[in-house]
């Protein structure tokens, strides 16, 4: 039987070169979706194969990797991807946003500001911001080429006419470098302003749809809006029940079947950092121990 032997960070060097070429092109044309020959990865499509391929292509032995899903380092898929690189690349891993050189994320941008030299890798399910307005790739590529984004503005306008608000709360479309309309991946729109003029490099990988795109450091990223309906962030109006933060995006946790709720930071590293610095919320306890099972 053919016993498999795997390269550093799983992918073979030829494949990494192909992905790096796509990344370089993506950086050269901010917000433009570069097609790449996405490989079949040993985890399912839709579970971060694009982000994993980008991370595998840029990772070096000296890198320190952080992986988050929903802002948290301990969600199951984040653990699974972190273990994958721990095993195939043997790189150091961390949960600290500040210490990481590469952060792979699904659905969140960390609360702590990113710094120069860091790379944020987003997992992207549907890279095409126009997809739900026009299902055909041949059409949407033409619309991007011509900068023809009227359809998107009509959609946002229709939202306002129907609901009184732009009814998009995540994957909120942005314009990058005043040229391409881009899907920020399904992050809540709360995170959109963090992409603008960010000192870190932001890379986006969509494995199933075979696209890579990028926001180079210090690039303008503007959320689409109208003068009389400006873009607004949303966060539940409460402090975090564990660390008392009033500025972080919150997860809603259902605590019983009688409608009780509590709200805690979705970014676990941020929350734990604040708690160890002495900040307390209404429900503070020792959140670091493993919950005893059985």
């Amino acid at each position: 039987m053919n016993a498999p032997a795997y390269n550093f960070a799983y992918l073979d060097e030829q494949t990494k070169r192909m992905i790096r070429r796509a990344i370089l092109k993506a950086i050269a044309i901010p917000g433009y979706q570069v097609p790449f020959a996405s490989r079949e990865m040993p985890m399912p499509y839709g579970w971060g194969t694009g982000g994993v391929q980008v991370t595998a292509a840029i990772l070096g032995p000296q890198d320190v990797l952080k992986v988050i899903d929903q802002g948290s380092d301990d969600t199951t898929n984040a653990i699974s991807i972190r273990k994958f690189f721990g095993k195939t690349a043997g790189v150091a891993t961390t949960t600290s946003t500040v210490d990481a050189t590469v952060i792979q994320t699904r659905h969140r941008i960390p609360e702590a500001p990113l710094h120069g030299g860091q790379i944020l890798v987003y997992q992207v399910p549907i890279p095409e911001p126009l997809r739900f307005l026009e299902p055909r790739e041949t059409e949407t590529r033409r619309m991007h080429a011509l900068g023809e984004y009227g359809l998107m503005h009509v959609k946002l306008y229709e939202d306002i006419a129907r609901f009184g608000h732009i009814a998009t709360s995540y994957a909120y479309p942005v314009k990058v470098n005043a040229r391409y309309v881009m899907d920020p991946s399904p992050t809540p729109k709360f995170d959109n302003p963090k992409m603008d003029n960010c000192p870190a490099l932001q890379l986006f990988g969509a494995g199933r749809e075979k696209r890579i795109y990028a926001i180079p450091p210090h690039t303008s990223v503007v959320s689409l809006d109208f003068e009389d309906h400006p873009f607004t962030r949303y966060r539940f109006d409460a402090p975090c029940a564990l660390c008392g933060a009033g500025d972080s995006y919150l997860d809603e946790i259902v605590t019983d079947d009688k409608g009780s709720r509590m709200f805690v930071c979705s970014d676990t590293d941020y929350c734990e950092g604040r708690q160890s610095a002495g900040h307390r919320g209404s429900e503070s306890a020792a959140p670091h121990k493993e919950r005893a099972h059985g």
Partner: protein
Amino acid sequence: MYVAVKGGERAIENAHRLLAHERRGDRDVPEVSLAQISEQLSLGVDRVMTEGSLYDRELAALAIKQARGDMIEAIFLVRAFRATLPRFGATEPVDTGAMQVRRRISSTFKDIPGGQILGPTFDYTHRLLDPQLAEGFSPEPPMTGEASIAATPRVTDILGRDGLIEPSPEAGADSVVGDLTREPLSFPADRDLRLQNLARADEGFLLALGYSSQRGYGRNHPFAGEIRFGEVEVEFMAEDAGFAVPLGGIALTECQMVNQFKGSATEPPCFTRGYGLAFGQSERKTMSMALVDRSLRARELGEEVVAPAQDEEFVMSHSDNVQATGFVEHLKLPHYVDFQSELGLLRKLRKEFAEAAEVPPMQEAAE
């Protein structure tokens, strides 16, 4: 007091351990061997090799065992392994006309040179559950006869000699074979890439699309010109040696559909082709593939694209079951950050709706 849920890492390890236990099943029952899967569930192995795009019976059998018989999961395992293999190049085109035929039928001619050969087939069996098979049944050895030395030319070649069917386009000696696993696919796609996509496509998806074309959604009047199954030789052009080196034999099923075509002002009318090819004995797959291949040639043949089976972006973007299952099943992953965002918006809209309903209707101004 609230304690945040942790311990996902241990939960994953325990889940995998439980999975391995369930996979084994009752340990008093003997373990199934790869040879048993390969020999006795051979059509399943054929499907995994075909849609996994890797001709290796042993690995396909291992994948089926590891996947507990879940075919799409097995195909996924094979694909992920295939992705790591180095590429040495493309083989010479296989000559299915020179196939060592085990089964070969035509529904367009009663008799053909080389004859109709039924071979091992479910066709004409009565689908009655056979209790004998439950245990210890030893079937009679098959009938044998003298191997015929008669050639078995392809039916479409016989039609082609009279120009009754469009010629198959010949690839140039130096033309590169497209490979959608190595180059990103773009639309419109050429037929080589379409056929590669269809060969890897989910059998059930192609079956439904082919069926829809028969029921009038982009009808193309098919006849099963020929279906053949058997062994062909695979050769690789060794640059150093300067000649093609035989690598071995593989089992293939080929289906050539003969379809109607009216012709044009400049071309006399002739039949058109739909083509299907798969590893092993995969007749349903190759027939469905041939129907859909013909449907997808609508643009090339100047037909109006009106049905799903004719729409190449629709078909090719949704045919791959490994992609499809990943994206459908990713809905199992946590989405609570986005859901929270949607909840916030929905609560706001409902609040505004309730407030608007509370405002009393404007009174008529008193005169």
